């Protein structure tokens, strides 16, 4: 795929990978993007509706309504995953159902359910973050880096910590 990889290939291999690339069925990028936009948009719209409902009737404020909204969406995604529906939605929606927080919940729930056969501790506990792990690891690392940069910038500007 990358240039570094093709350099290691022999001329015959390069010829063949070029042929294979030319015969590869084109991914319908426009259609996939449209689907991702619509389905992702709808999930966010649902989230907004839940948030507004919580503010209007649940006694939450604009600031505190975020957490319960996310929790409700996650619960919904886990139920759909358990019912065996979320993977079907995923094939249609692509990133549209993977990027929202529901996709994060799906990655946890699907791994947990799948590895139940290897036991509760090693299977469910050990494998739950099989897919979501990198998101947390690098999200945390990025947040740490941003925090350190802020710390340095503030020290340099001589302002309060």
């Amino acid at each position, binding site marked *: 795929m990358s240039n570094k990889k093709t350099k290691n290939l022999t001329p015959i291999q390069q010829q063949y990978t070029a042929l*294979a690339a030319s015969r590869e069925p084109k991914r319908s990028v426009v259609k996939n993007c449209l689907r991702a936009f619509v389905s992702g948009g709808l999930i966010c719209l649902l989230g907004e509706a839940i948030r507004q409902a919580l503010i209007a009737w649940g006694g939450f404020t604009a600031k505190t309504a975020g957490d319960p909204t996310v929790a409700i969406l996650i619960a919904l995604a886990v139920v759909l995953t358990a019912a065996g529906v979320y993977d079907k939605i995923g094939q249609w929606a692509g990133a549209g159902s993977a990027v929202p927080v529901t996709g994060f919940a*799906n990655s946890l729930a699907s791994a947990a359910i*799948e590895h139940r056969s290897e036991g509760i501790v090693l299977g469910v506990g050990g494998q739950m973050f099989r897919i979501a792990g990198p998101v947390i690891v690098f999200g945390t690392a990025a947040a740490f880096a941003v925090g350190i940069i802020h710390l340095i910038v503030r020290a340099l500007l001589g302002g309060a910590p």
Partner: protein
Amino acid sequence: MTVRRTGHQTFIFDQHPIVRSVATVVGPMEGAGPLARDFDIVHADMMLTEKSWEKAERKMLEEACTLAIENAELQKESVDFFIAGDLMNQLTSASFVAEKLAIPHIGVFGACSTSMASLALGALYIGSGVAQHVLTATCSHNATAEKQFRYPTEYGAQKPPTAQHTVTGAGAAVLSNIGDGEGDAITIAAATIGRVIDMGITDPMNMGAAMAPAAVDTITAHLRDMRCNADAYDIIVTGDLAAVGHELACTLLHRHGIHDAAARLVDCGLLIFDRTAQEVQAGGSGCGCSAVVTFGHLFKRMLRGEWQRMLVVATGALLSPLTFQQGETIPSVAHAVAFCRTTRVQQGGET
């Protein structure tokens, strides 16, 4: 001795081992496909009422083996060897079934080429005279393969159009040096052991493209070793190249000037599903794919007299989740077995 080597990679059987019986077991998707009526057992439940996917796969393989022995009108004690393989790490399905069958067992791994690899080895056992009856079998399960090679089954990842759907199915065949009577039978004329070919494909979601050169290499080697043209066969069948790999294989065969092989090339991965109605992307794959299509569907058509000679080239992508994560390219292999439709007269000797 009734077996001898010809050329570099091929052995010929002067006295053909007979495919005495076959049995096929498939899952719900395959049971909803165009070949549904050719399979012996169709399960409506992917889990087969078992506790895990792995147990379900094992049960399918066991059912296929037991049924094949039954169809051969043999007792399992009279089967000399059991040669089998699957896609699971350490060939667990084959090993666990071998424990239950208690037949001396050797496991083979050739990824999806295992069906023909085990058949070729079984035929060699018969041809060399060390065995009278050999059971060969292979299986794959969509969910166990997804779990081991890709994502949890309930994870909502989108599959690209080059991806293939692992067949849930098990196929078993009993090879014998004597048949169970008169009439038409499928026999094994020759087998070619393939070389491992790596043409630099890295995308595990495009295994058809990785395997197509291996299929072409083995077909070319077989024709060269046998000193025959592709028209010696009524049909040439590849294991699980599916839409992408099939087209590439045809292109490569044309480039090698073997036009009549390209003209009679069909693919098990394309036959088993209806790609317009079933969501299988490029087509089927997996050990079970070539096994159930060859044993269940193609043999029946041969016995109906549609074809006299058939070459089945089962293809396997020899990758693991580890190798592709480490950025390795995908090596592939293909093994070919030449089948004949033979009309037998009473052969004498006990059955």
